[in-house]
C-alpha cells in the first residue's frame, strides 16, 4: 500500500512537471517577444509570465466547470 501511495505521488508529480513544461512553452512564446538582450526576465516579461500562468489556469477552470455542467445535463 505504501508502494501504491508512492506511485500515485510520483505520477502526480510527473503531471505537475509536465504542466510546468507546457506552460513555460506557451507563455515564453507569448511574453518573450523582444530581442534577447538580457538573460533575466525584464520588467514586463516577469509579470506577463505570472499572469500567463494564472490566466491559463482561470481559463482551464472555466472549461472544466462547463464540462462538469454538460455531464450533469446528460
Amino acid at each position: 500500500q505504501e508502494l501504491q501511495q508512492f506511485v500515485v505521488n510520483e505520477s502526480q508529480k510527473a503531471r505537475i512537471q509536465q504542466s510546468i513544461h507546457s506552460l513555460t512553452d506557451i507563455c515564453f512564446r507569448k511574453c518573450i517577444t523582444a530581442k534577447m538582450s538580457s538573460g533575466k526576465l525584464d520588467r514586463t516579461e516577469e509579470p506577463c509570465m505570472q499572469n500567463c500562468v494564472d490566466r491559463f489556469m482561470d481559463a482551464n477552470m472555466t472549461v472544466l466547470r462547463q464540462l462538469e455542467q454538460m455531464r450533469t445535463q446528460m
Partner: protein
Amino acid sequence: QIRQEAAVANARQLVEKLNEHCFERCVPKPGASLSSGETTCYTTCMEKYMAAWNTVSRQYVARIQRESAAAPRY
C-alpha cells in the same frame, strides 16, 4: 477499468488541445484577470473546438468503416 482510464486520458487530451488553441487565440496578452471579452471568446472557442472534434470523429470513423468494408481483412 482499463477502459475507464482510456476514457479519462482521452478527455484529458481533448481539454489540453482545446486549451492550447483557445488560450493562444483568445488571450493574446495575459493581464491581471480574464476580461469578459476573453472569457466569452474562450467559451465560444471551447464549444467550437468540441464541435470540430465531433465532426472529425464522425467523418473519420465513417471513412475507416467504408474502407474496411471495401477491403475486408480475414
